[in-house]
């Protein structure tokens, strides 16, 4: 999938990224322990690659995304985009670069200006970067609306007239308007039904193949992640705990948290519960008061004394696979969940029928 | 007529506030009225402006006509208890004359060469030259007699306290709000009937009128002219009209074309319909005359007639002067200073336009207005003149003498100058009258100004208030007043 050149050149490199929030306290609030939302994160995304960022809610994924795009300032760490250090670049100097890096925001509604019609919203990036004339912009808007499964008539509506999923698609379309090199997608498909989700995922992949797009892809749906990603990074309490090529990760997760995640995937078959176990009482740590040692140890079924005192670092376990766990090499091999029991035979039959019909009518598989 | 009653408090509302209680710093009428109820001078102007004895019982003039000897009223005490005597007179006059005092009205006694205490009740004053209007001058509010001990005791606070010899004495003063005086039971003359008079401030004309209507005030002054008819018809109130010293005139700058041409000035005089101004704009309140000095002022040349309204003649004169199509000029009009001033200005503007004179009204606020007039460059303006002393000498020196400060029109006539100086030393009233008449006629002929009208003072009282006396010199005397 990559050419040699692309592999060797990361488009985005992040080193020791740190961001703390609000230690000073508000104007009328006492100071509090700062929230260490992102606490030393390093990774690189190669050109044309998709790096998925998964992890616990509140673990700092969105914050990482915003840091990477310099929407908020980091407390420490460096960010390089296409070889250029952009950590200290002024916002003005960043502006032209922004054409090449775009973002899909987690909260679609809030991130759309309520006073603009969808067409205006979508045209905006083109205008900002002086691309195309009115007719070309129009055409491009129509094109992208179609690609994300919206139609022409949506263009002249305001965002509050949309459903949640429709808004999310507007956000995706906006990010793609400019043919960016890097798209940071913060849960881009969470509000989409599976069919539209499939359409959008296909779209993202097609574009990647065609234009060598690079994605930093934040998602909770691990099936989608598995489908989209080349590599997966797992975040826990502001830090990366595991990062690996997706096959390696899904086949052989080395961090107990990753395993916990995979266990918790809900199974799309009634009566077949996920393997997730109701949590033992262990208090979940908060980013304002991360525990000593391994941050995960209070919840970790494999925790030993060492985990309580010594903080593990992200170390390679095998080629390209890194995990931050003292016991990464001691854990038993991972057993993937058995494939969902073949759906009832009627269902399987009908689905096959459906697929056949569909293939016949559209010529795609 | 009901019988006078004693007691009660009378509330008087004026348009502005008492500024100071130091008589030597008074420059405005409202302050004059308040302070004048507490202080007295050697001489006094009565209701009609005649000079009568005040704290001086009598006086004599030396043959060289420079030394005046005053016999003072005995048994008079100041409100603070100290006695009134020649020493107090000398002290008061010397204080005014002392430049360190910084009085804005030092000129009132400018002609004085020396003052002297002859004995307790005899005071002598010598002028530099014979000075005809001296007795008028000595009636002015700036030369009220002060209590020396009181002044010394109060020091810097003197401007906030009062101790005179008048029928009322100070009870309290909240600057900017109100001043209350109470009856002086030790007054040497007829004691006041009221227990107290409150001098309050209501700047807004209509509000002041309403205050009277509501009964929250007993007397108001500066009643807007437009209200006179309406109020006059009400039973609850009584309108009090009185001629005053004020003249409203239109001046023209004789040093500026086209007003350097007498015919143009005359044309302006003919073009203005003065009776219409008084009837139309001033609700008929005011009187007409030709002299710059109001008819109520002693010696005013009543024989001088106002220029008749004759636009045809005006046009003819303009044509003769080379302005058959008229001309355009700036016209400076004060605003909010005199009754209906801006409206009168606009009416004149219209009347002048009818004969082809395009007058561009400018009415800057008073400071800028005054500055412009003082520069002597204003071609045409409207203004008003009063008379601080009630004697023409003061105003004629200012306005008709070539070096006068208010000679805004730039009249420069050696004969006029001479007459101005002559009348001052002419102690003989008859002679002086003649000189003044000549002086006014001379100026009238050259017409540097058109006398528009003489203002009337209009006050009003509740109808249960009696014997409030309004003087021609704008003083309001409450000492005889009573409330039924």
């Amino acid at each position: 999938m990559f050419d040699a050149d692309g592999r060797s050149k990361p488009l985005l490199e992040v080193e020791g990224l740190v961001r703390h929030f609000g230690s000073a306290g508000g104007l009328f609030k006492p100071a509090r322990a700062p929230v260490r939302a992102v606490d030393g994160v390093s990774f690189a995304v190669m050109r044309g690659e998709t790096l998925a960022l998964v992890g616990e809610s509140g673990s700092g994924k969105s914050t990482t995304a915003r840091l990477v795009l310099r929407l908020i300032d980091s407390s420490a760490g460096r960010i390089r985009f296409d070889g250029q250090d952009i950590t200290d670049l002024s916002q003005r100097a960043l502006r032209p670069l922004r054409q090449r890096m775009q973002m899909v925001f987690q909260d679609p509604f809030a991130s759309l200006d309520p006073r603009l019609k969808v067409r205006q919203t979508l045209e905006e990036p083109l205008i900002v970067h002086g691309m195309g004339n009115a007719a070309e912009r129009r055409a491009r808007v129509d094109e992208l609306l179609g690609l994300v499964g919206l139609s022409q008539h949506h263009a002249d509506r305001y965002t509050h007239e949309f459903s949640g999923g429709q808004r999310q698609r507007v956000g995706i379309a906006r990010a793609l308007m400019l043919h960016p090199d890097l798209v940071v997608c913060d849960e881009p498909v969470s509000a989409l039904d599976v069919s539209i989700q499939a359409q959008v995922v296909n779209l993202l992949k097609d574009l990647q193949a065609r234009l060598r797009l690079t994605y930093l892809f934040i998602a909770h749906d691990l099936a989608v992640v598995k489908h989209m990603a080349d590599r997966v990074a797992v975040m826990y309490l502001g830090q990366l705990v595991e990062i690996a090529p997706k096959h390696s990760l899904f086949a052989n997760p080395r961090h107990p948290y990753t395993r916990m995640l995979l266990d918790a995937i809900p199974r799309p078959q009634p009566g077949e519960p996920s393997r997730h176990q109701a949590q033992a009482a262990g208090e979940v740590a908060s980013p304002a008061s991360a525990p000593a040692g391994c941050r995960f140890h209070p919840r970790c079924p494999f925790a030993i004394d060492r985990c309580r005192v010594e903080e593990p670092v992200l170390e390679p376990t095998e080629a390209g696979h890194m995990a931050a766990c003292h016991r990464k090499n001691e854990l038993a091999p991972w057993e993937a969940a058995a494939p969902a029991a073949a759906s009832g035979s009627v269902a399987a039959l009908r689905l096959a029928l459906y697929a056949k019909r569909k293939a016949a009518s559209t010529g795609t598989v | 007529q009901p019988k006078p009653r004693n007691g009660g408090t009378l509330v008087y509302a004026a348009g502005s506030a008492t500024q100071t209680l130091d008589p030597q710093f008074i420059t405005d009428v409202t302050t004059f009225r308040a302070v004048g109820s507490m202080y007295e001078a050697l001489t006094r102007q009565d209701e009609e402006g005649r000079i009568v004895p005040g704290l001086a019982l009598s006086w004599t003039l030396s043959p060289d006509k420079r030394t005046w000897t005053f016999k003072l009223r005995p048994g008079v005490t100041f409100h603070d208890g100290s006695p009134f005597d020649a020493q107090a007179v000398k002290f008061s006059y010397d204080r005014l004359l002392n430049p360190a005092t910084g009085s804005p009205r030092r000129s009132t006694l400018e002609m004085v060469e020396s003052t002297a205490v002859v004995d307790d009740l005899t005071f002598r004053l010598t002028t530099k030259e014979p000075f005809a209007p001296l007795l008028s001058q000595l009636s002015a509010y700036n030369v009220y007699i002060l209590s020396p001990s009181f002044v010394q005791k109060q020091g810097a606070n003197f401007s906030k306290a009062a101790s005179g010899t008048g029928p009322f004495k100070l009870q309290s003063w909240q600057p900017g709000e109100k001043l209350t005086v109470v009856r002086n039971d030790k007054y040497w003359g007829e004691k006041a009937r009221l227990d107290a008079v409150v001098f309050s401030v209501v700047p807004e004309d209509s509000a002041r009128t309403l205050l009277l209507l509501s009964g929250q005030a007993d007397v108001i002054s500066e009643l807007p002219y437009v209200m006179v008819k309406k109020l006059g018809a009400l039973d609850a109130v009584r309108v009090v009209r009185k001629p005053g010293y004020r003249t409203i005139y239109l001046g023209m700058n004789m040093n500026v074309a086209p007003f350097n041409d007498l015919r143009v000035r005359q044309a302006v005089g003919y073009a203005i319909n003065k009776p219409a101004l008084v009837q139309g704009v001033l609700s008929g309140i005011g009187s007409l005359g030709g002299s710059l000095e109001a008819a109520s002022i002693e010696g005013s040349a009543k024989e001088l007639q106002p220029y008749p309204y004759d636009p045809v003649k005006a046009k003819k004169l303009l044509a003769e002067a080379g302005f058959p199509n008229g001309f355009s000029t700036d016209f400076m009009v004060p605003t909010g200073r005199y009754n209906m001033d801006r409206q009168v200005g606009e009416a004149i503007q219209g009347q002048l336009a009818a004969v082809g004179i395009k007058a561009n009204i400018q009415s800057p606020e008073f400071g800028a207005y005054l500055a412009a007039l003082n520069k002597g460059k204003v071609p045409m303006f409207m203004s008003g003149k009063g008379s601080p002393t009630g004697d023409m000498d003061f105003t004629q020196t200012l306005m008709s003498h070539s070096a006068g400060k208010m000679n805004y029109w730039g009249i420069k006539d050696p004969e006029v100058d001479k007459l101005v100086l002559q009348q001052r030393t002419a102690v003989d009233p008859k002679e002086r009258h003649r000189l003044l008449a000549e002086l006014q006629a001379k100026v009238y002929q050259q017409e540097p100004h058109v006398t528009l009208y003489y203002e009337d003072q209009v006050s009003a009282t509740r109808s249960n208030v009696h014997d409030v006396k309004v003087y021609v010199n704008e003083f309001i005397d409450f000492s005889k007043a009573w409330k039924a």
Partner: protein
Amino acid sequence: MLRFLIRRLLQAVPVLVGVSVAVFLMIHLIPGDPAEIVAGQMATREDVENVRRALGLDQPLAQQYLHFAGRALTGDFGTSFRTGRPVSEEILGRYGNTLLLGAVALLIAAVVGGLAGIVSAVKRFTWIDNLALVLSILAISTPAFSLGLLLILAFAVWVNLLPMTGFDSWPAIIMPALTLSAASMAVICRIMRSSLVEVLDNQYVRTARAKGLREHLVIWRHGVRNAIIPVVTVAGLQLGYLLGSAVVTETVFAWPGLGRLLVQSILARDFPVVQAAVLVVAVTFIAVNIVTDLLYGLLDPRISAS
């Protein structure tokens, strides 16, 4: 918070200096000679000179300013040209009056205007909204003197209910405060309406309803509270207006306030009073603005007060 206050107070210093220099320069720039005005039109040249000397106006400008500034630092603003009384004495009492009147007027304006705005927004496009609109416009386009006189006519002349002038009693403040508050009331009403109309469209308002909150709580807590920032801003600005520009009201009701004093002093070129009055107004504005800025942070936690 404390640091914010200290910083703002420090920033006030250049503002005050700036204001005083500007006022000083400007009042000297304009035509009109205080000595002439104090002495009166009918004064002799000598009298005028006499006054000029007594007022210290014969000195060079820079010296006059330094003299003023030097004394002002010690709290002494000199004496009034017009009355000869110490300026601080002239101003303090009046400032108190003005503050009282302004505060009461603002209170009325905020309560009545605010409520009217809220009702208008909630009952948008109904007769009550239209009524509020008409009344607001009426309040805006009726000059204070007309309104004041009408009130006097109604409540002092027709029904002898309220005292017109003087403030020996509390009722005396009612009419002037009403008059003064009219325009502000209208402004606050309209701004509140505009702002609230927008806020009520937000989804968190829907959330509030979904919780089963009583409608008035929905409106107040989730509507008004979020709509209040522009209202606070105008209220702050209005307070300044009420303090500095209440001239007409003060005139009509003979209310001895700072606004009229300031205007009169400007017209009379009473420099010391103008200087001091402007400084007092400036201090008030600065204080109001500090409070407003503090309120922003309090009202919207996303705004960091800085």
